[in-house]
């Protein structure tokens, strides 16, 4: 029972408290460059989720055999292997989306968030816990990407997942790739604001 609770906590932690995009401010490049539509955000989010979960499990599995001095290269190579897998799979089964995401799928290998989770969590915990931690982090990233994609697609093109929702384009500016900078900035500020309000109410109750 205790493990079940902590695993939900791990997932929630990745989604909110330590959201990789808005709180930890890691892996910003795709958040700015790719999140122009919900679909793009979703696909890259799923790719990262996959790589994160797989490499977390792999490292948790072999953590006892890794010499501490070569742990970082081991992490990098593990991630690179899984990224190659997802890269080949995506290019075979979703060639159109793969082309839209361009170089970013291959660049998952350099995303700081994955290495950081391996270093901070997976190399010290059991495979089950690492799975949920990786899942939470990946889900947090996916959530961030989809939220950004939602806001940008709705405001920029007036569509959602390609379907016309609003019938007009409120602010075409948000469809530009560079509007990602503004979007991420606003979302971070929103997260900060929620935290401030949350702490204030907690203080009042306490």
């Amino acid at each position, binding site marked *: 029972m205790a493990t079940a609770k902590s695993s939900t906590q791990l997932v929630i932690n990745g989604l909110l408290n330590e959201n990789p995009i808005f709180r930890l*401010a*890691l*892996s*910003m*490049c795709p958040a*700015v*460059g790719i999140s122009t539509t919900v679909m793009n955000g979703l696909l890259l989010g799923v790719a990262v989720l996959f790589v994160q979960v797989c490499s977390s499990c792999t490292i948790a599995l072999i953590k006892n055999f890794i010499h501490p001095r070569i742990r*970082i*290269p081991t992490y*990098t*190579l593990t*991630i*690179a*292997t899984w*990224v*190659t897998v997802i*890269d*080949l799979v995506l290019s075979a089964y979703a060639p159109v989306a793969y082309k839209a995401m361009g*170089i970013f799928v*291959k*660049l998952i*290998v*350099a*995303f*700081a968030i994955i*290495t950081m989770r391996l270093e901070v969590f997976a190399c010290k915990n059991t495979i089950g816990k690492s799975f949920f931690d990786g899942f939470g982090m990946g889900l947090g990233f996916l959530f961030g990407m989809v939220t950004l994609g939602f806001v940008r697609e709705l405001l920029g093109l007036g569509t959602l997942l390609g379907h016309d929702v609003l019938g007009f384009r409120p602010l075409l500016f948000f469809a530009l*790739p*560079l*509007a*990602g*900078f*503004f979007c*991420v*900035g*606003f979302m*971070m*500020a*929103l997260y*900060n*604001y929620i935290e*401030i309000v949350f702490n204030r109410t907690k203080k009042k109750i306490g």
Partner: protein
Amino acid sequence: MGGMNHNKFPAFGIALLAILLLTAGCEPQSRFVKKTAFKGSHDIIITFAAPVDAAWATDTAHYRVYEKPDPDIRLEVASSSLSKNGHEVRLHFQEELNQDQPHMVTVKNIMSGGKSLGTTVVKVKKLYLSFLFSILIGAMLIQNFVFTKYLGLCVFFGTSQKKSTAVGMGITFTIVMVFSAMMSWALYQFVLKPYHLDYLQIIVFIGLVSLSVQAVDTVLRKVNPLLFKAFGVYLVLVIANCIIMAVPLILADNEYNAWESLMLSLGAGLGFLVALFLMSSVRERLELANVPRTYRGLPIAFVVAGLFALAFLGFSGMSIF
């Protein structure tokens, strides 16, 4: 120690330039076609080694022109004319030529002095040195990796708080960038591609990046401990930067040669340095500004970066030469 190092750089630069000029001069062409060049926005000039027959030269059916990346799209030659001495053929096109791409011209059945000299394919491209320069400036400003390709943001926001940190990071990054990009270029061209191991790209490149960071670390520690003290801390951060992975991948995709690769990696490094310097200048002033509490720190930095990106958008579509 420092003075000695400074003396070496100009000599090295001159040697580099000399090699560059040599390679630029040695472009392989057909034996009979001496020179090809773009002239104005609509014309291509082909210079032959000997006078060619006027009747042959003015028939546009003898030329087939396409841009190197798309061989299927044939460019229509509107008219062709021969210069007075019979050496130069000027091909005129209806449409404006995209001079950023090399053009391939098939010259059929060259007739000179009444006898046929066979068919040949020649490449027309901009002067090589200016092409290299345009790659450098392109990677640095027009397609700045930070502001127009949105790469390397984690390190960008992490190290742009102070000017001194920003410059240190930028310089370290440029050095490692050039070093690792050249290594991965060589490995890709001479090992991965001939043996059809393209799918190992990611693993090989990331391994090489870590290796070259380690190598620069070791060499710098021994050769110049003072410099190492100043820049050593940034070396670890280099690995976490997407740009260092992106450049080898772009090089592999575009099939650049050694000089083009050097220029692109140098441009990427310098572009990162420029972006860091600009950003840190603004962020130093932001420290003193009265920013709303929710926007303090990263959120306002993102908005500033967005404004910079808007400014850099002004460079887009610009072509040098």
